[in-house]
């Protein structure tokens, strides 16, 4: 499974540019599902036919990044954020463009107090010798993502874009396992979650499922002096109770708990104070779709080095397989 994760995290895919991820997943699932299609927003929808309930499983393909807004006369790039970016977090980070061009994020050193740093006062250095040189490598409107490796260490993964390639990996793994079920399963790899849960809405409208689960990451409360939160990495997948975008449908939540208890799968509960998931836009689509979520506890979310525990990932696969059966 680490191989799947590794391939997914190393593929370029900021919001609106998910095609490479979609192509990769399409190759992985070819022959394992009955139908694969894409829609106008770029969602990848993989269907395992069945006669029972229509269940939609959603994980978003897109990752946070930056977008080039201006190239100056010396070849430095000005940029804006794509999704939630903290200026402190990206300071000194390497970013990589779709064509492989690498850049370093730095800032105007005359800003005075570093606390006042804003994205407008930052730039990307792509080692260009001039504006013309820079323009050969990138254009205004190009997006870039964090550059960082994916490491498995001590049963835990350190990587960029765990949000939400880990969700994608879980869905891929379940589809490959081909769990026996009467239900019709829609493995939906969504676009543009990080900029406002956009892809999931149109995908859900097209599918009109009987129920839906969003598989995404959640923050944790297990690091030094962090905000209190009763989620820890390694303690099992988190069953969503609530986040900023959705309150999990009670029947979905209860069914997840029942599945976890019946199969002795360690689990915990997610009450996410900041951030939302695809379930937020799915549950209010059309006449309403009962929705919930399974979240992978993740440290340092929206950072180039997010950390998850492999056991949580494997248990999430088991839990969701039990749910859709």
């Amino acid at each position, binding site marked *: 499974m680490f191989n799947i994760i590794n391939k997914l995290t190393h593929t370029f895919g900021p*919001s*609106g*540019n998910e095609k490479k991820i979609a192509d990769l997943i*399409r190759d992985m*699932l*070819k*022959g*394992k*599902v*009955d*139908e*694969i*299609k*894409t*829609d*106008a*927003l770029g*969602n990848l929808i993989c269907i395992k036919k069945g006669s029972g309930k229509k269940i939609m499983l959603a994980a978003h393909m897109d990752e946070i990044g930056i*977008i080039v*807004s*201006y190239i*100056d006369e010396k070849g430095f790039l*000005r940029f*804006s*954020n*794509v999704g939630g970016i903290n200026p402190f977090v990206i300071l000194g980070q390497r970013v990589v463009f779709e064509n492989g061009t690498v850049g370093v994020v730095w800032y105007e050193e005359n800003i005075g107090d570093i606390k006042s740093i804003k994205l*407008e006062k930052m730039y990307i250095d792509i080692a260009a010798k001039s504006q013309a040189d820079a323009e050969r490598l990138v254009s*205004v*409107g190009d997006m870039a993502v964090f550059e960082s490796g994916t490491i498995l260490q001590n049963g835990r993964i350190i990587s960029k874009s765990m949000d939400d390639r880990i969700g994608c990996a879980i869905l891929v793994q379940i589809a490959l396992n081909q769990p026996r079920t009467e239900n019709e399963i829609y493995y939906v790899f969504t676009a*543009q979650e990080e*900029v*406002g849960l*956009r*892809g999931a*809405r*149109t*995908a859900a*409208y*097209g599918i009109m499922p009987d129920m839906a689960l969003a598989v995404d990451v959640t923050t944790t409360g297990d690091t030094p002096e962090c905000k209190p939160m009763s989620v820890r990495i390694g303690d099992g997948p988190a069953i969503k109770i609530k986040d900023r975008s959705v309150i999990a449908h009670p029947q979905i939540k209860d069914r997840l708990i029942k599945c976890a208890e019946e199969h002795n799968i360690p689990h915990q509960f997610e009450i996410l104070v900041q951030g939302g998931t695809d379930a937020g836009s799915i549950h209010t689509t059309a006449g309403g779709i009962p929705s919930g979520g399974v979240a992978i506890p993740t440290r340092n979310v929206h950072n180039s080095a997010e950390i998850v525990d492999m056991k949580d990932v494997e248990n999430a696969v088991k839990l969701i397989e039990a749910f859709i059966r």
Partner: protein
Amino acid sequence: MKAALDNLKKLTALDGVSGEEKPVRDYIVSKIKDYVDDYYVDNLGNLITYKKGTGNGPKVMLDAHMDEVGLLITLINQDGLLKFRTIGGIEARVLAGKRVRIGKDQVPGVIGFKPLHLQSSKEREGTVDKKQLTIDIGAKDKEQAEKMVEIGDLAAFDYEPVEFGDNKLMAKALDNRVGCAALIELLKHKYESDIYGCFTVQEEIGLKGAKTSTFQVEPDIAFVLEGTTCYDVPDTKEYGISTVCGDGPALTIMDRSVIADKDLLKHITETAKLNGIPYQFKKTISGGTNAGRIQAGGTGVKVAIIALPCRYIHSPVSVMDINDFENMIKLAKKVLETLPTSITLYREQGGGKVNV
């Protein structure tokens, strides 16, 4: 093109603050009814027009919102002055000292302010507090004022369009009468695709109209015609410039509401290059447009935005370049004419199915 500019000027002279777009809509109907196959007004007030295509192109929606920012009268003071709230985003500093006209009878008024002579030194330095501003309609007291206006009346800026300088136009409501005037012009021509020209309501207060228009039309592709921010005047760092007035229509790659479809964007830029039409990219990601609402409609719509740079947007004295306006129409027209051959639709590929 002369007709388009004439329409634009007449449209900016009409009032259509969000929720009361009728004067604008009536004018548009009079201009398009001979060119479209069908049109109707929906429950929200959107004007939806249909023009049958000559071939088998994708179903295309063209969106331009009719509404403009303005004021809502909320209270009539004892002294006959009117309290108000803004409809859509208007800055307090822009409001003070501006002429407005209120309600259906277009009662004249002015947004009053304390004269400089009477201000304390602190007041002179500080910013304007929106809550302190009132509209003076020349009434001597509340009773007299109540005969002239009612609570709930909408007020629009009272400024006529003026052509000036190097082919520039100064007017209120350029956002988004430029889109309306461009769309009227586009509807005069025939295309291979079925065209749904949608003149929408209530964009400025949260992209309301486009939600129901998209639900009704269910397009494959949509182009949003918009007036957009422009700040290229002195003291702006070059990298902070959104668009440049006179550099051609602006294409949005990403804003707060949407990431434009890559295929459509490519088609637009290639069309522009092929036909020698100038264009620029909008370089900031601020603001939102109907494109965000349209894209998320139904099973999803491929969207792009062709915008016109407007200096001092959301003010009574917005400024645009007439060449930009003509190029916006030219570009949109070419884009529509060449659309069917250059855009691959997921629908055409049988929903993007691949053999498994």
